[in-house]
């Protein structure tokens, strides 16, 4: 299910190797995840649920949803969507809820190593990378941890050009903006990076991180920027749990990072920017998009994104929803229907679509749990995507030493995430006595740009939500 030719991306035919899955050998490409390698071989069921014995497959592809947990080299609950395949590894389908193994000594390391950077940045997406670069330019020593094998967050899979102002790199493809940021970070002697490393808890003044599933490290930073991004929302319909129902962003990772097609015919659920953009990118990967259904009467994403898929003949059905999915162990068809004013399906409007993939683009929720664990005040703001941290205009939370930036502080575009990262990084530097008047300038300038970005009628609700959380 590899993508052969692509108008924007090129995938190297890098060397192949094999690992074992159940009782067979599976070939993989260097630099791809276990889940992507299995998907390419037509393995969609990665585990089975405990009590109901139902198949589970890939969903978010960025380590957030737990749908891809498998047993790898004897260790259960490994997130195979963010774990690179390695030659000779043993991968098993997980059946039910596993026991924590007591006979794998690497899981219980002693003594625990400690690290003492000035600034810890959790999450290496656009917000985290900008925060790191800004802080480092003021002389701050930075450690970035990210649980994905690659830096760049969701930027590296954005093959479309970004909107915005020409002086903020608008008109460049997201992946190119992301790769430029990664290069600057990797070239900066003051910034250390740890990928495949999860921050698992914020305890008083230190943060526990878990590296490569094998080493637990205590980090004692002066300041922390939490830039953990967001999680794709699940919506309710019968059989929404079977393999073949994916988050739209999960498909983007599979397609644009790993070069693997999700299937052959797709129903996209949700006509916000994510749904529209991913539908277009599916077409570019030579995958058919049968329809985009949108439960509201209007297309939520930018008109120009909608126009791009419409002129390829993809219908956008507003006032429609997915009623249910059918299929034994994998999506075989989807039933959609028209909804009335109260969201109920109009009798007789149901129809069947012959699809093998259902992509959910029904919204994102901030990944706030570390902030909650760290004791930051949160507030529920639907306009910002759910629970978000209270913070001031300089992105500092209710905790003196914890900052936020990017989608975790409210769902927005990547350009806003980068500007928030810049503000957080600059203010953290100033508070540590590292910055000077230049940092104040940077903050002022970024705030002005943010205001400009959020000024139009499209962002009216967002502005209302932001007013509430900025104390």
């Amino acid at each position, binding site marked *: 299910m590899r993508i052969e*030719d692509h*108008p*924007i991306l090129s995938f190297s035919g890098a060397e192949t190797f094999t690992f074992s899955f159940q009782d067979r050998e599976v070939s993989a490409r260097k630099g791809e995840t276990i889940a992507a390698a299995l998907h390419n071989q037509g393995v969609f069921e990665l585990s089975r649920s405990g009590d109901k014995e139902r198949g589970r497959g890939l969903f978010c592809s960025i380590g957030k949803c737990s749908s891809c947990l498998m047993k790898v080299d004897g260790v259960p609950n490994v997130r195979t969507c963010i774990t690179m395949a390695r030659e000779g590894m043993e991968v098993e389908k997980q059946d039910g809820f596993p026991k924590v193994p007591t006979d794998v000594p690497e899981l219980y390391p002693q003594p625990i190593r400690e690290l003492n950077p000035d600034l810890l940045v959790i999450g290496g997406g656009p917000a985290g990378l900008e925060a790191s670069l800004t802080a480092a330019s003021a002389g701050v020593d930075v450690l970035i941890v990210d649980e994905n094998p690659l830096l760049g967050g969701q930027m590296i899979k954005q093959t*479309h*050009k*970004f*909107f*915005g*102002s*020409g*002086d903020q790199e*608008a*008109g*460049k*493809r997201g992946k190119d903006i992301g790769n430029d940021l990664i290069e600057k970070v990797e070239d900066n002697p003051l910034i250390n990076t740890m990928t495949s490393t999860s921050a698992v808890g914020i305890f008083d003044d230190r943060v526990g991180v878990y590296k490569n599933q094998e080493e637990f490290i205590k980090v004692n930073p002066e300041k922390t920027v939490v830039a953990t991004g967001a999680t794709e929302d699940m919506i309710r319909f019968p059989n929404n749990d079977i393999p073949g129902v994916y988050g739209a962003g999960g498909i983007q990772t599979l397609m644009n990072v790993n070069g693997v097609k999700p299937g052959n015919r797709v129903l996209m659920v949700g*006509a916000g920017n994510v749904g529209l953009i991913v539908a277009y990118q599916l*077409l*570019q990967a030579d995958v058919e998009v049968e329809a985009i259904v949108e439960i509201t*009467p*209007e*297309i939520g994403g*930018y*008109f*120009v*994104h*909608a*126009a*791009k*898929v*419409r*002129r*390829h*003949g*993809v219908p*956008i059905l*507003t006032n429609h929803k997915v009623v249910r999915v059918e299929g034994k162990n994998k999506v075989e068809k989807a039933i959609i229907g028209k909804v009335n004013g109260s969201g109920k399906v109009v009798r007789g409007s149901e129809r069947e679509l012959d699809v093998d993939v259902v992509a959910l683009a029904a919204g994102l929720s901030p990944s706030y749990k570390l902030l909650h664990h760290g004791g930051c005040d949160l507030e529920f703001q639907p306009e910002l995507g759910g629970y978000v941290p209270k913070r001031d205009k300089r992105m500092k939370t209710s905790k003196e030493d914890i900052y936020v930036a990017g989608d975790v502080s409210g769902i927005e575009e990547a350009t806003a995430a980068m500007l928030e990262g810049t503000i957080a990084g600059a203010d953290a530097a100033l508070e540590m006595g590292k910055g000077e008047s230049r940092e104040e300038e940077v903050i002022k300038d970024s705030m002005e740009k943010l205001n*400009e*970005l*959020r*000024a*139009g*009628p*499209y962002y009216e609700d967002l502005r209302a939500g932001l007013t509430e959380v900025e104390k």
Partner: protein
Amino acid sequence: MSEVDRNTQGWRSKGYLDAKTVPLPPTARIESGPVAVIECPQEIPCDPCSENCPVGAIELDEINQSPRVDGDRCTGCSVCVETCPGLAIFVVDCSPDEGCRITLPFEFDLPEAGEEVAGLNRKGEEVTPAIVESVKPRDQSTYDTSTVTVRVEEEYIHEVRNIRRYE
């Protein structure tokens, strides 16, 4: 026309503009040479078209405005077609004795010059065959978007906004 007025044309729920609601240049302008048509009715924060126009023909008082083309200044150079992040700009041209042609952004498997392709309207329906006159691949584009110029009959100049290669 304000955004509210245009909303009544239904693009918010349909995802495409009706040809009659697109701000088109006058026929005399199209017959005097190539000119840009911008199909971007929504007020979103975006300005690379105006920033990169070499002759200052795209007016935008502030970043959230919907851009407008000054037909007197526009030379039809197609820089905006390549630079628009939303792929929402086209160049139309019905110069006398040369027939009509449309330059459009195209991020799919590129056709060859001289090839006959399907001319698609804003809903993706085939409305006419079109002949590919020239192709400018991404790597030759200053702004990283490939463009295709196709010849069509004059009646389709405001209809065709996409192409599909025949099998």
